[in-house]
């Protein structure tokens, strides 16, 4: 039934895409992406206004209207043949096939960040019908966590019950819509252009994100993290402009507004894209010797792009300041700086004013990584930069279209500048935001950098695909690009066994998650939903705690430890472990007892006990923790004895 409901969401999206394709001048292959961006914005805004569910109903009613309007025999509309192009057809077929496949495969979340935010937030939104910022959960949400991708998952499961695969399918359908934009210039039946275009998009995440061990192969195309959609939306915002002969900016504006609501770094990327597109639009107008009013309109549209980015970005800041207690003025971290202060301080250090050793070390390390680390399947990031520039240069050289030559040049030069700025910005976050243990090793460097490169490369591919329309000599770009993509596919084929991807993996990839879910369901069966549960998993680094928080929501898993140490961790008597042991909660038995009751917890879920826990706290339990000897167990507070009584074993052990 969930599959049917997800297909209903896809059909609703089709209504708006058809409307755009028939009643506007937008080429049909660009319509699904534009419609999806509008959908994400609609639900994000509705979430911020607190009317998510009513807005959803309105959306589906409007979608029905869009279907009618698309075919109504009134007014001007594009002929049906305009829809019969490879990309548009392929999108709906592939999106429906993906939903069917995921409904059967049932992929699941698997990474830390999916449990600490992306997945948990998706579950909260579906379960509560509201955004997640004020959800009762064991930790504070961070202001940087934005809602566009979360509500995308919500849209694909507006009807029916919550399922992880529906969230994951939503993300992939966004990616499919992005890849479809690349086919915008492929005429009807020109599979020699459409197939390599779609394949190029599909292969990009494999090429860029896997090799630096940033992403598990099984998680690619089965992940609710934001990085890949973020990067590709950035590229898509430019691709929809370059691949539309009318050079309309409004689809890009939709994409940039969405980008700003996908993640906080999306704002920086959106500004770069807005800069490139504005400069391009203005240069085109000047080069075509457009009259002053047209140049004025172009300037206004360019300003509108920046305004859209600003409004979108600030809307979330404003929403948080009203709806949440999170501090949205500073970017957090070790220096507690505001965004502007961070950039100004960084620029000063860059030119040598008050330059610290930390700044020099981190920036030096980043440049070294850029040049030498094997971070992508094609080599260091610098190779990707070179490849992107090469594609843009190729588009310049092999087209007869003068405007495209200029556009590709502007794209290459400004894109490089944007990359430098983005690179510097990420460097600043390492210098001023991250803890030393993160910044010293440049932890996550690849993950922060690859979104820009993904998007930039996608947009460069769009320029090459546009060059095919007026290539010189005829057939060269089409053939060259097809061979190039075939080569990329061969590289991916050689480096990534199919059985390690979500499309070829077995149930084993999700077996552990299913076991965890089963345990969580057993706990939920014996604990009332309004009770708070104290969580014990000795030796946990927080991952189990996040995982069970997700699995058990809306049941409340307590923060379960000393503040500042994170959830989960190891409970032991003071002195039992060295003081600097990570995630060590040194409590006496009385302190732990008081902590549990003070936090309002009337149940304890002991997922994993050990000798340290038994030696320190057996006296708090009426059975002396004998119930834990067989594995995980649940205990309930008995006010009469002031002890915790054994409730049951969970997880099939006894």
């Amino acid at each position: 039934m969930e599959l049917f409901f997800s297909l209903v969401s896809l059909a609703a999206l089709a209504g708006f895409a058809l409307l755009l394709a028939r009643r506007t001048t937008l080429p049909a292959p660009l319509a699904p992406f534009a419609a999806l961006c509008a959908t994400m914005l609609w639900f994000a805004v509705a979430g911020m206004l607190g009317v998510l569910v009513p807005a959803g109903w309105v959306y589906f009613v409007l979608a029905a209207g869009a279907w009618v309007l698309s075919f109504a025999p009134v007014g001007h509309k594009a002929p049906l043949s305009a829809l019969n192009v490879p990309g548009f057809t392929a999108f709906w077929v592939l999106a429906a096939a993906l939903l069917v496949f995921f409904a059967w495969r049932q992929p699941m979340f698997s990474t830390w960040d999916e449990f600490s935010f992306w997945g948990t937030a998706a579950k909260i939104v579906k379960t509560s019908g509201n955004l997640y910022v004020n959800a009762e959960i064991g930790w504070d949400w961070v202001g940087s966590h934005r809602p566009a991708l979360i509500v995308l998952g919500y849209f694909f499961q507006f009807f029916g019950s919550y399922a992880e695969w529906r969230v994951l399918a939503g993300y992939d359908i966004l990616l499919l819509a992005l890849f479809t934009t690349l086919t915008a210039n492929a005429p009807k039946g020109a599979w020699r252009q459409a197939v390599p275009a779609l394949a190029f998009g599909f292969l990009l995440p494999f090429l860029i994100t896997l090799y630096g061990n940033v992403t598990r192969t099984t998680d690619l195309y089965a992940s609710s993290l934001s990085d890949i959609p973020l990067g590709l939306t950035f590229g898509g915002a430019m691709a929809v402009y370059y691949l539309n002969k009318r050079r309309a900016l409004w689809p890009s504006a939709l994409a940039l507004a969405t980008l700003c609501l996908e993640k906080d770094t999306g704002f920086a990327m959106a500004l770069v894209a807005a800069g490139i597109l504005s400069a391009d639009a203005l240069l085109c107008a000047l080069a075509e010797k457009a009259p002053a009013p047209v140049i004025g309109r172009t300037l206004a549209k360019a300003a509108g792009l920046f305004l859209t980015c600003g409004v979108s970005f600030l809307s979330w800041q404003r929403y948080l300041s009203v709806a949440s207690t999170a501090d949205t003025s500073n970017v957090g971290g070790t220096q507690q700086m505001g965004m502007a202060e961070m950039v100004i301080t960084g620029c000063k250090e860059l030119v040598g004013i008050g330059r610290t050793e930390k700044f020099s070390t981190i920036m030096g390390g980043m440049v070294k990584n850029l040049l030498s680390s094997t971070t992508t399947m094609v080599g260091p990031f610098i190779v990707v930069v070179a490849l992107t520039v090469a594609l843009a240069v190729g588009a310049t050289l092999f087209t007869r279209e003068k405007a495209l030559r200029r556009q590709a040049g502007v794209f290459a030069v400004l894109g490089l500048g944007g990359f430098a700025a983005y690179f510097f910005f990420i460097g600043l976050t390492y210098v001023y935001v991250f803890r030393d243990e993160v910044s010293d090793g440049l932890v996550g460097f690849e993950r922060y950098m690859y979104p820009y490169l993904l998007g930039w490369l996608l947009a460069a591919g769009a320029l090459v695909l546009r060059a095919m329309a007026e290539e010189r000599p005829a057939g060269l770009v089409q053939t060259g690009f097809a061979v190039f993509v075939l080569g990329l596919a061969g590289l991916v084929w050689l480096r990534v066994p199919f059985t390690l991807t979500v499309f070829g993996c077995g149930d084993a990839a999700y077996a552990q998650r299913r076991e965890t879910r089963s345990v969580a369901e057993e706990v939920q069966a014996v604990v009332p939903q309004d009770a708070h549960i104290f969580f014990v998993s000795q030796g946990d680094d927080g991952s189990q705690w996040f995982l069970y928080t997700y699995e058990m929501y809306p049941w409340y898993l307590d923060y379960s430890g000393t503040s500042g140490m994170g959830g989960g961790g190891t409970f032991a008597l003071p002195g039992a472990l060295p003081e600097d042991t990570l995630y060590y909660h040194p409590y006496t038995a009385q302190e732990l007892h008081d902590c549990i009751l003070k936090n309002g917890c009337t149940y304890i879920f002991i997922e994993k006990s050990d000798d340290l826990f038994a030696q320190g706290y057996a006296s708090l339990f009426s059975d002396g923790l004998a119930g834990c000897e067989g594995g995980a167990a649940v205990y309930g507070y008995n006010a009469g004895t002031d002890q915790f009584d054994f409730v049951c074993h969970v997880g099939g052990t006894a």
Partner: protein
Amino acid sequence: MKEKISWLNRHKMLTLYLLALAVWVLYALGCAGWDALGFATGRLHTETLALADLPLQDIVQDEDGNWVTAGGDPQLQLALDQPVRSVTFGTDAPASGFEGYYGKSGQDASLRRRVWAAETAAGQVLLVFPVGSGTVRIDPAGSEGVVLGAADAALTVNAPLPLWRYFQPLGEQGLALAVLPAVLAALWDLGAFWVTRLRR
């Protein structure tokens, strides 16, 4: 005839996917027929192998005689005097933990020659291998402490498969079915483009 060729030319993608489907049906029927012939001629036969008679790695008997995984990489090795087409195992261990590796004699296990198990009924795990699998390795679980069966636990090799199983793609066959027609359509279209261009 010209009209038909013209129609095919205009619907390259549809044509190739229909062709792939037809090839797949023929291939599946061919495999079913080949197996039936194998059973008729004695090349294939159903046999039951006790775990105690198989080379095992990281699988031991506990004090009750149960077969239990005891290390990080438990394996059952099968090198028989007949090709292996299927393995059925009655076990309470989760089917999701089972995976099979196949190859010719002497070939090392490879992630590119891997199949996943299916649960055919409660407590029944089935692994289906492609035609030509000489040696087979079965990894029954990814961790230690998993009880595979009682002391007399046994595998059934080459139990006849229902016909529909032959139509279920194994591993990369599914990928080939999904992707190759599209690639061929692109190549066909590119070829047609160059033929037209060179004729001019």
